[in-house]
């Protein structure tokens, strides 16, 4: 079921406010949808934090122009890293299910 090899990926954070509250929630929600273990770091050498932990992701406070590194391990590791990179690269688009005031 698992093929062992960790999957890595990185992406430049271009979101104006960086990895603040709303982007953090989106990233965490997306990560939670995968069964793989997923970690995130704001520098290549870490420290690595659990991408499914909203408190840790928000506490990382990654500013704009940070290169975010992801690594995942598990059955859907590849899809997970691809989806997370896509979320960051596409600048955290609003999901249709979310109502946006203003």
């Amino acid at each position, binding site marked *: 079921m698992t093929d062992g090899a960790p999957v890595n990926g990185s992406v430049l954070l271009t979101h104006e406010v960086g990895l603040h509250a*709303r982007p953090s929630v989106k990233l965490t929600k997306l990560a939670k949808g995968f069964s793989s273990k997923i970690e995130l770091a704001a520098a290549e050498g870490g420290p690595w934090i659990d991408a499914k932990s909203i408190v840790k992701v*928000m506490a990382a406070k990654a500013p704009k122009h940070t290169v975010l590194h992801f690594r995942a391990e598990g059955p859907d590791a590849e899809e997970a890293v691809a989806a997370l990179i896509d979320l960051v690269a596409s600048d955290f688009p609003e999901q249709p299910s979310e109502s946006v*005031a203003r």
Partner: protein
Amino acid sequence: MNDKVGIVIVSHSPDVAKGAADMVRQMVGNEVPLAFTGGDPGGGLGTSVETILAAIDRAWSEKGVAILVDLGGAETNSEMAIEMLPEDRQGRVVVCNAPIVEGAVMAATEAWGGATLDEVRRTAEELSPA
């Protein structure tokens, strides 16, 4: 449905309670059962056991309900409300020791992912200064 822990926000101010709930809905979405209550029945600042009970009912989930409170009375009234719940529900409602707005957003994010009540509470409380 009802596969996510519910969140209840209890503030002395109806505006604060509603505002915190708005933030949860906007940031986390509508999939998590959510209810809020604030103010005393006379229209002033305060909390009421009765409206807290009703809020727990609105946000009820078989997985339980996590309550976020602001100051003293909100906490004691929430605890009183829990004591007045039917016995089979009492063990499934907790008051989180966390800041009301941040705690509600964190708890709801965790609940959204299908976490248990204990995990939801711990996530909200992770925020509190050590």
